[in-house]
């Protein structure tokens, strides 16, 4: 069999009877068993095929799901000891939509605990390794999904993106990662991290596949009242449209200290390619870009401290038997069940929301968020798509930044503002770094609910990169 199947390849192979649905499932299942020892991309691997709906858009396409989304009757750990033995009571909406479209689920992928991290080193079940160099991180938090796609241990995968957790690992593993507009995809059945920012998105081998999967998982959902009632177009339809005359904005703030020179080189090259395609390149400014990350690291911990209050050792998940009172159950279960990063964020959130500090931190951060969104709104008055790096560096070594939480936070400097403003963003491979020979991602940001223009531009650029 050939290597590195796209969705199109699978559908074609099934049609021409190059392989059957069962054969392709077994092919991936066997491949995962060999390769996963090395990569730790999967936390659980399904041995049995589910019933496949025939004649659907993704019939028999093998895919992987990040382990913070629920597939009924199977484990969902969120990368945490506190949910080590938790069995999903229902399907996440995105999962059930994929199920209805005919996919075969291969397993659940590794992540930073509760999706908190940028390297997948915060998983309670060990880090995932980057397929391009197993001494390096795959990025995070959807590092398992990105590594599985990059190593062809699935055809595509779902991830979740709160501040870059789909785009940044896609960038570091050399695959495509799409974060849809906030409200485009239901969060029902996604274990909540920061509810006002979380969004599910696909990690794929090309832009076409990302467009195809988005069309399937998108739409309003009565179980998620933040899904926006909007028509879901066929996102694959306009991909081949000529992008001559498309206005592309390049924020001057993106080229800052900390951006590695080999990343900058590839980003400039991709921008030049867009110009070759007939796009109009414009210098723009996002004056408050500098403050996005600080605002994010107040909003996220605040929402985390609230969302993770549900893990109390009472209703499900890990429970400590120590102590004699209910309060002891809370304290002991949470102390033993959570790893260091959730503890840091829960405590930081509790601090930011505590009496006397609310105005100085939480309220201030939400005001800054308004300024970030205003910057984007003004920029999008002049341009159609904004571009730049996905991540300031290529994949770093496992353990290299583990002792410094703040330096890991800085990994998301280019992706976080997009979540704060609720915009769609995509990372596409822009080649290998001159020195590191590691993948570099090119980020493209679209207007609210204008994934079509974004995907069209990304597809056209992908062809010439």
């Amino acid at each position, binding site marked *: 069999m050939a290597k590195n199947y796209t969705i199109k390849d699978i559908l074609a192979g099934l049609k021409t009877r190059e392989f059957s649905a069962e054969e392709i499932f077994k092919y991936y299942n066997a491949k995962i068993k060999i390769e996963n020892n090395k990569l730790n991309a999967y936390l659980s691997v399904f041995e049995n095929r589910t019933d496949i709906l025939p004649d659907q858009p993704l019939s028999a396409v093998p895919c992987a799901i990040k382990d913070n989304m629920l597939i009924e009757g199977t484990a969902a750990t969120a990368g945490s000891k506190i949910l080590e033995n938790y069995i999903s009571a229902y399907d996440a909406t995105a999962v059930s939509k994929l199920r209805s479209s005919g996919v075969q689920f291969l397993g659940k992928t590794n992540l930073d605990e509760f999706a908190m991290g940028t390297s997948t080193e915060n998983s309670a079940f060990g880090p995932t390794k980057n397929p391009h160099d197993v001494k390096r991180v795959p990025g995070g938090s959807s590092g398992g999904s990105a590594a599985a796609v990059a190593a062809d241990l699935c055809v595509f995968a779902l991830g979740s993106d709160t501040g870059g957790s789909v785009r940044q690992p896609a960038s570091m593993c050399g695959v495509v990662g799409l974060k849809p507009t906030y409200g485009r995809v239901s969060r029902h059945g996604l274990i909540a991290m920061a509810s006002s920012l979380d969004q599910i998105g696909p990690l794929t081998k090309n832009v076409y596949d990302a467009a195809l999967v988005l069309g399937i998982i998108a739409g309003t959902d*009565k179980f998620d*009242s933040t899904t926006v009632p909007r028509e879901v177009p066929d996102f694959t339809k306009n991909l081949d449209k000529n992008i001559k005359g498309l206005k592309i904005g390049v924020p001057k703030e993106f080229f800052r200290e900390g951006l590695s020179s080999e990343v900058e080189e590839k980003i400039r090259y991709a921008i030049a390619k867009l110009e070759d395609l007939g796009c109009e390149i414009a210098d723009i400014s996002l004056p408050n870009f500098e403050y996005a990350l600080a605002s994010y690291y107040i909003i996220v911990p605040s929402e985390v401290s609230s969302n993770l*209050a549900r893990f109390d*050792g*009472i209703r499900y*998940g890990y*429970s400590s038997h120590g102590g004699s009172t209910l309060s002891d159950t809370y*304290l002991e279960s949470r102390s033993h069940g959570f790893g260091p990063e959730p503890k840091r964020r829960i405590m930081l959130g509790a601090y930011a929301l505590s009496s006397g500090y609310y105005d100085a931190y939480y309220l201030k951060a939400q005001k800054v968020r308004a*300024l970030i969104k205003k910057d984007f709104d003004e920029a999008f008055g002049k341009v159609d798509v904004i571009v730049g790096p996905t991540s300031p560096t290529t994949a770093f070594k496992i353990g290299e930044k583990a002792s410094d939480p703040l330096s890991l936070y800085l990994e998301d400097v280019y992706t976080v503002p997009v979540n704060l403003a609720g915009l769609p963003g995509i990372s596409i491979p822009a080649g290998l770094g001159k020195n590191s020979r590691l993948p570099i991602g090119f980020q493209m940001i679209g207007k609210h609910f204008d994934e079509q223009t974004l995907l069209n531009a990304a597809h056209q650029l992908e062809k010439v990169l």
Partner: protein
Amino acid sequence: MLSEKEIKHIANLARIRISGAEEDKFRKELSLIIDYINKLNELDTENVEPLYQVTGLTNSGRPDKHRADFEMSDKLNEKLIGQAPRSEKRFIKVKSVLNKNG
């Protein structure tokens, strides 16, 4: 830098019990992060309205109707509380709410 008293207070608010060594570690780490986020004070936000969410949706409701798919049954009951670490019959068991010593 957060004081020892402050970190104890925060940990208690978060319902997380931390050891003496952890206390020191978290105190240092959280203080560094707080120093970083304090840079927001450079910005004048006097006349800015806070933005809590970006969808523009307000008061998304649903009809207050009986939902057949959520009719209580043994099966649904099992789904909802079947994974509780301590339970008896259809109920979740918890330890004493009040501390006997005071």
